[in-house]
């Protein structure tokens, strides 16, 4: 008998997302699109206001997010992320982030979502002597990834930012991103994709304790004592701030609330 895609308790799934998506009751209405304004009256994008972001504060050694029982909308807004960082180089492609053989796992199924997390960055070459996730574990000790250029290049697989988010990554600070990966990160709200002004990956080492101050666009490496300016989030800000593409579209009146 074919298994159909069912979604037990969406709250469990969404609580592991970086940006809390509000649990919605399934609407019985059809999905007729009823625009309330012309596309040309698209609101000018505002710059990011971190106090509006609904994140939980991140504590060091992020525990398995799916075990959290807190309801998404009751989490206080956070303005910073803190924890150990994991450093990778340039051109980390989606096959290194989540190898193709694991793509039979469907991200919208909670148990498979969790499994995806356990395979995050398992495709990195052996030159990365420190594993991102210990064998047998489902989540990582490193909630923050520091990367070089073109992070997330390759495939359009949304499983990539999903696996990182499921593993407990809250933010990536990269020199630059590949387009589809960045888009998927924003649309899902799984991880916060930040850009650095300089090659932070050359100055940080895996295991360094870092803090990202979102409001000040600042990365602090407590282990080295150095600070770095981060680039403003740009056009993706309002989408991230709203909580992903669906929340943003509802706010903009593009789809019924």
């Amino acid at each position, binding site marked *: 008998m*074919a*298994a*159909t*895609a069912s*979604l037990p308790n*969406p709250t469990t799934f969404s609580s592991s997302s970086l940006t809390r998506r509000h649990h*919605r009751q*399934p*609407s*019985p*209405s*059809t*999905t007729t*699109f009823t625009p309330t304004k*012309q*596309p*040309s009256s*698209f609101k000018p*994008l505002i710059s990011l206001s971190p106090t509006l972001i609904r994140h939980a504060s991140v504590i060091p050694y992020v525990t398995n997010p799916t075990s959290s029982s807190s309801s998404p909308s009751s989490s206080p807004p956070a303005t910073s992320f803190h924890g150990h960082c994991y450093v990778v180089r340039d*051109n980390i492609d989606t*096959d290194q982030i989540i*190898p*193709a*053989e694991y*793509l*039979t*796992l*469907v*991200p*919208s*199924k909670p148990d498979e979502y969790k499994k995806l997390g356990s395979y995050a960055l398992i495709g990195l070459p052996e030159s990365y002597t420190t594993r991102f996730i210990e064998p047998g574990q489902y989540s990582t000790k490193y909630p923050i990834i520091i990367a070089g*250029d*073109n992070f997330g*290049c*390759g*495939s*359009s*697989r*949304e*499983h990539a930012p999903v696996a990182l988010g499921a593993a407990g990554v809250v933010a990536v600070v990269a020199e*630059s991103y*590949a*387009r*589809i990966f960045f*888009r*998927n990160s924003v*649309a*899902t709200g799984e991880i916060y994709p930040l850009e650095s002004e300089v090659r932070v990956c050359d100055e940080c080492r895996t295991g360094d304790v870092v803090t990202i101050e979102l409001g000040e666009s600042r990365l602090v490496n407590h282990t080295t004592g150095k600070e770095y300016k981060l680039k403003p989030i740009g*056009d993706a800000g309002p*989408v991230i701030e709203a909580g*992903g*593409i*669906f929340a*943003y*579209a509802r706010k903009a009146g*593009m*789809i019924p609330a």
Partner: protein
Amino acid sequence: MATSSFISSQPSFHIPIPKQNKPSTKIMAVKTGMTMTEKIFARASERTKLSPGENVWVNVDVLMTHDVCGPGVIGVFKKEFGDDAKVWDREKVVIIPDHYIFTSDERANRNVDIIRDFSNEQNIKYFYDITDRSNFKANPDYKGVCHIALAQEGHCRPGEILVGTDSHTCTAGAFGQFATGIGNTDAGFVLGTGKLLLKVPPTLRFVLDGEMPDYLLAKDLILQIIGEISVSGATYKAMEFVGTTIESLSMEERMTLCNMAIEAGGKNGIVPADATTFKYLEGKTSLSHEPVYSDAQAGYVAEYRIDVTKLEPLVAKPNSPDNRGLARECKDVKLDRVYIGSCTGGKTEDFLAAARVLLASGDKVKVPTYIVPATQKVWMDLYTLPVPGSGGKTCSQIFEQAGCNSPNSPSCGACMGGPLDTYARMNEPQASLLVNY
């Protein structure tokens, strides 16, 4: 392996001339022109004019998904729009199982069942189903690799917007349309609304001129370009391919070119529609379509000019598509196997080209050589089309005589890896020449 002698000279690749957007201080300013990509965005967002960098909601003409991402897309769709929600247009969704098909992996098989159940529930018009995995020919609806199937089934049309849950969706840009890859969440959104929020990309222009030498294929052209601009050289940009060489290319060759736009980080690849395009489309689609063309005064980020007569066959060496090398400089690299297939290199013309090389060589292959046609139609062509200059032999005959493995079931196959029992999958480190990317 090629029999012609090569011109031993530096490839002609002009230093890019950054073209500034027209200054707005022009006296009697005429409306600044738009590139064809910008025009497609304008039409799709019901605007008369827009500029790169703007974020617009566009109407999507076709949404494609396959067995790997389909279940996730469906999950998002049902979660966000409700279990009883209907797709925005049952005729604009094309669902194509092609990635992990011929495998005993239970989850992979389940994923095809999921997209079938959804297609039935939603009465999706275009679902290219496969139920008998033991014999692909027993499945009349099954096509194979999604990007080739989209073209062969007439879903690619000039001027339209096509999005798909696969990075190589950019292949369809060969038809003069905007086509790009998106993730499950974006696709779930399109499934419910028929719209997508996209940023208008600026365009890189590649002008390829000169008569295409018979020892080159479009694959060499795009490897030349990727090697020049790097795997992030086209990030967030459109790659527009024009010039006399482009005009001489077949649709399949244009598809190869656009297919690898993503390997340069490109948002999309695009070729203006012309007589070749319209001829290909004859009999494939009944939907009306209106091509668009870049204005003469359109602005480009940069323009690259290439004289193809100065190019040589290329390879992309491990481990990056931009690690460009001359094929003749790699002739002593020992290979363990050869794989001919995928959306890039598994089309009919790719196999015809391979067959001609093997025919000219007259030798047997020295390593296991795997043949994986992209679609059922390509598979048929291998067994029916005569190879030019062979005295009436088919590709399959030439491959057999050369000692290649028999053509296998059409699908993405081992290109992406997939489940461990995928045909021709490399399960330990080996040197493989992939005639894809």
